[in-house]
């Protein structure tokens, strides 16, 4: 019984780590641009497919062994999704920067549909299986419990990436500028911050993290599909809202909480209710505390 519970916690944290990685992309873009990047889920899908291309189509693993192949794939996936994100911003969002907010939202939805169809046309509408076991199937002992190494790998990758981001945002000069632009873009410009550059960087980091999450899901579950980004995107968006949209630690915590809620719900309530539980959580948060659990505690004084 206890071991079952423990297993669910580990599983929840694994799934939650993936949600958190994707949620960071939503929250960073929202923080700076006050825009929900609806195409973010498709960048996640793109990451999975680029990973598939590297690991299965090119079969890097058989040339260089799993460690080097996966490292190279991580770099390739983040690079290509970052590039796609940058392009997305230039094509779909920058021309609409000064127009109505609704125009940007419609453009985001359009970009999402376009990217999803593009991936479908290029790679086909069927499921793709990674086939090879890229992640070890062994277990390690932790606190008297067996923990699958693959899950640990996914969780730790997510956590390490998030810690790096956290340090970047809080302890670097440019990180400070990103936070400033998220709080008050005009005031940030008066400080000499180049807001275009901030937006560009946000549209590089967010998609790279989303793409990385796509790769993790691909290698962990072993199969991917052109519309996988839709549900993951919605879940991660939920996670971002739970944590307080625009709030970076909020997205991390929101992702982990949602992962736990979903897995524990599936284990102890019903597996069929898994997705419903997530969206009930979204609705509850929006009704009870729309600013999220980590919303700013500082009252703005004018």
């Amino acid at each position, binding site marked *: 019984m206890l071991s079952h519970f423990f297993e669910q916690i580990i599983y929840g944290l694994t799934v939650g780590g993936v949600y958190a990685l994707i949620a960071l992309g939503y929250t960073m873009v929202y923080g700076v641009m006050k825009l929900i990047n609806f195409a973010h889920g498709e960048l996640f899908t793109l990451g999975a497919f680029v990973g598939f291309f590297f690991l299965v189509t090119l079969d890097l693993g058989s040339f260089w062994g799993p460690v080097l192949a996966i490292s190279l794939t991580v770099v390739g996936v983040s690079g290509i999704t970052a590039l796609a994100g940058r392009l997305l911003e230039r094509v779909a969002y920058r021309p609409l920067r000064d127009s109505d907010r609704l125009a940007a939202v419609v453009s985001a939805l359009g970009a999402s549909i376009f990217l999803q169809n593009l991936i479908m046309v290029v790679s086909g509408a069927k499921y793709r299986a990674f086939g090879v076991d890229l992640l070890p199937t062994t277990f390690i002992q932790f606190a008297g419990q067996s923990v699958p190494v693959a899950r640990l790998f996914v969780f730790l990758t997510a956590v390490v990436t998030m810690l790096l981001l956290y340090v970047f945002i809080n302890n670097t000069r440019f990180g400070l500028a990103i936070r400033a632009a998220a709080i008050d873009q*005009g005031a940030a410009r008066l400080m000499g911050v180049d807001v275009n550059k901030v937006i560009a960087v946000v549209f590089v980091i967010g998609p790279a993290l989303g793409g990385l999450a796509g790769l993790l899901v691909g290698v962990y579950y072993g199969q991917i599909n052109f519309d996988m980004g839709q549900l993951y995107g919605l879940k991660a968006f939920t996670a971002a809202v739970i944590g307080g949209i625009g709030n970076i630690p909020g997205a991390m915590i929101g992702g982990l909480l949602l992962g736990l809620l979903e897995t524990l719900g599936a284990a102890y309530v019903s597996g069929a209710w898994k997705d419903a539980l997530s969206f009930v959580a979204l609705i509850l948060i929006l009704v009870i505390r729309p600013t999220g659990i980590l919303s700013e505690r500082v009252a703005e004084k004018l």
Partner: protein
Amino acid sequence: MNPTDLAAPKALEPPVLGPPPLLELKNLVVAYGGVEALHGLSLTVGQGELVTILGANGAGKSTTLMTISGLLRPAKGEIYFKGQRIDLLPSHEVVRLGVTQSPEGRRVFGPMTVEENLILGAFTRKGQDLTPDLTRVYYLFPRLWERKKQLAGTLSGGEQQMLAIGRALMARPTLLLLDEPSLGLAPLLVKSIFATIKEINESGVTIILVEQNARAALKLATWGYVLDVGHLALSESATRLLNNQKVRDAYLGAR
């Protein structure tokens, strides 16, 4: 070549009267969402001066400062700073050239600490040691030193104003734009902030002060400009403006 070209007289150059002014606005027209806020404003500010811009609400004072800072684009006209045209530059380039602003409403970064706000003020000074500048700001505003680890949003209005001014000093500006630094502050605090503004000016920083508190501003400044719905109505020495009956009636209240 047309022989008449050779015969054409050379255009008359205006006589050179020393160095150009630090800042020059030429026929500035600025529109906000279709409504014109400035209709051809021209003014100059010399190096080391402390000038004030007065005018009723909606006269275009904040618009003028935001246009100088590059957050608003003029529809017509030009802005020169140290002889260089700046009205087409992005705002971060304007800051880099040495123009900073403490904006209306203070606009401190509430969720950040006092010190983080100050460090952001020096964003354009990449890789430089900020210790002397932080020390200077804390010397000018000891209250900020006491609260340097506190979130800016938890400060009182007066402390936020000190932070906004201190933050604008961190880039080591040549020209400092101050928009309503006394707004909503207790009289005693206004006095202390104005004394500090004087001190900053005496240290060599040129200042443009936009104020509702016209009397205090004119006592501090050497020169005053009065804006009236987007036009320059008056441009005179501060002492003359203080004694101008129209200005007294319109901005200084009965006393």
